[in-house]
């Protein structure tokens, strides 16, 4: 187990600030902090680095989504770095996330002792990023209408939409590429084309599995729980309840707003971990803590946050359950087939681009059907 942990933040004015350390007596100097930071900047893709500076063995972790934070673990002289390679990123991710979201909940000694950690972003968390980057959402809508589009044309369109020349298509398209929604390829003589490969749908599902399990494991609470869920999805008239399948062209519609809320809930790493533990069945704070290895205080805090978004609720003494299950799912964009045909017959795309689009769709979906 590492003998010390310290968390460093690069502040634009004060420079490297050691925000937390354990044990408190552990001391550092500016040179060590500089060299650790430098090591990460040298190889931007790598988020875990091992350094030996002034006879101190340090493993440092950087979450690329939080580039100004470093979680550093000091190893003992005989500790094996290879054995910790799997564990440290998860702990580092949790520490950094907590430092940004709720620093008073960071107790490094407890995290170290309980091996609390956070996993890498799941598929639905990557989808969520699309709706948290406004220009990415715009590009997705456009590409849903076009099916395939030249990157240059898309860039001009985006600039006109946001009325700014500084908007960079590469940045807007990154969450779409990361989540596999679009493919960007050079076709023929240098035409960069953006292909829609998958589409994504965000909604709140009724927590059917959790209700079914509650009927078996806690029959005394199940009826009350079901009632609570029904109030959200099918309240008595005149309330209309929740139906995400009703089409809406209004950009200010509550469903579009709710999609952003869903994206926010899913993208918050700690809340997401607690949320996924509740997808199976209702649990107490202690049970969630045991399953997620997160401290009870952190779990409680995440539950309050989920409650404020109409995701979780307390259904009995100390028992928490999902009222709605926020989900982001991908599906095959069948609607692009006629679009490709139309574009081809109107000479808007070359046969090469059309063929490649069909190939990409087949490659992507043939194995998953």
């Amino acid at each position, binding site marked *: 187990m590492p003998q010390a942990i310290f968390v460093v933040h*690069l502040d*634009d*004015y004060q*420079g490297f600030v050691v925000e937390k350390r354990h044990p408190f007596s552990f001391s550092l100097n500016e040179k060590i902090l*500089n*060299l650790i*930071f*430098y090591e990460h*900047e040298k190889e931007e893709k790598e988020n875990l680095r091992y350094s030996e500076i002034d006879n101190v063995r340090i493993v440092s972790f950087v979450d690329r989504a939080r580039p100004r934070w470093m979680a550093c673990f000091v190893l003992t002289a005989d500790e094996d770095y290879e054995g910790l390679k799997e564990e440290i990123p998860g702990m580092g991710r949790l520490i950094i996330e907590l430092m940004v979201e709720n620093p008073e909940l960071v107790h490094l000694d407890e995290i170290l002792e309980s091996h609390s950690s956070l996993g890498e972003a799941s598929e639905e968390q990557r989808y969520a990023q699309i709706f948290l980057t406004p220009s990415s959402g715009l590009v997705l809508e456009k590409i849903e209408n076009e099916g395939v589009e030249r990157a240059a044309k898309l860039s001009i369109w985006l600039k006109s939409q946001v009325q700014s020349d500084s908007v960079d298509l590469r940045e807007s398209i990154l969450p779409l590429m990361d989540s596999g929604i679009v493919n960007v390829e050079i076709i023929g003589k240098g035409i960069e084309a953006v292909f829609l490969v998958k589409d994504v749908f965000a909604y709140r599902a009724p927590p059917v599995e959790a209700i079914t399990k509650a009927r078996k494991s806690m029959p005394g609470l199940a009826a009350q729980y079901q009632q609570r869920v029904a109030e959200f999805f099918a309240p008595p008239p005149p309330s209309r309840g929740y139906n995400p399948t009703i089409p809406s062209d209004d950009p200010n519609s509550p469903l579009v707003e709710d999609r952003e809320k869903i994206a926010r809930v899913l993208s918050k790493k700690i809340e997401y971990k607690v949320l996924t533990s509740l997808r199976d069945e209702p649990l107490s704070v202690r049970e969630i803590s045991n399953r997620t290895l997160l401290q009870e205080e952190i779990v409680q805090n995440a539950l309050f946050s989920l409650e404020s978004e109409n995701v979780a609720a307390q259904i009995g003494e100390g028992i928490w359950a999902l009222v709605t299950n926020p989900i982001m799912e991908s599906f095959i964009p069948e609607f692009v087939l006629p679009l490709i045909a139309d574009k081809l017959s109107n000479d808007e795309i070359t046969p090469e681009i059309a063929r490649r689009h069909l190939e990409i769709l087949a490659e992507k979906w043939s194995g998953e059907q």
Partner: protein
Amino acid sequence: MIRSLYILGQQSNVIYSKEYAKSESGEGLVEFLVNFAHFISSVDLEGKTEYMGFSGTRIFYAARRDFVFMFVADKADDTAQIEERMTQLVDAFIKDFATLAEANLPLEGLDAKVDEIAVTMVKVAILGYAGVGKTTTLHLLRGETLPLVHDPTIGVSIKKLPDEVQNANIVLWDLAGQSRFSILWAKMIANAQVVIIVTDSTLENVLRSKKLVSLVKEEVPEAKVIGIANKQDLPTALTPERVGQILGIATYELVAIDISYRDRLIQIIRKAILEGKGEAKPVPA
């Protein structure tokens, strides 16, 4: 930057004022503010902070209970930031000092509170290739004795200027000049209000340093960029004018090992901070 600050009472009388930077309008400004405060107290600002342009500056004002609060700030200042400070001042004053002011009692502790709110932090980055005298310039600015042995900077060395310049705490970022650390430069100069590009005044180094000017202009376009023609005591040194021509920025002479240059350099930085985005004018020697 907040140049001065005024709190006026029921009869539009000045119950507290503090001046951080000299204002060209002087007495005329105070007279104007007193009359203006009289007007403000007759309108409902709905708890908001408003501002107006006045003689090259911007006057931010807010009213609460019977008091009117005013900041005279630079035009280039970030409006949201000044408004936030105004809210802090108004809240602190109403909470701890309003009753004292109404009873005509001394406002003990207000001065320190005002400094806490109005004094800003200014980041000054010192950039240049290895061995041109960046760290020596940092020592000069801090009035420190020069070390006998050259110890290259690792990454970045961050130190405060011992004296406040106007109402700003100056934080100096001395960036390592070795080429392996060049990957850090863009990130380290983020949010710098002033960037000092130090050259050793040799033709070769000055020509190389042109790249640094481009980097700074791209990464921190809002920052004021100053050139330093260091090592002017050496026979091979180009004149500051020639260095300035090549770099395309206002450039000043320096012998960083000569303590007599300290005040002049601080004046240059002070001027750059005050001018904000405007062009720095050479400070007479």
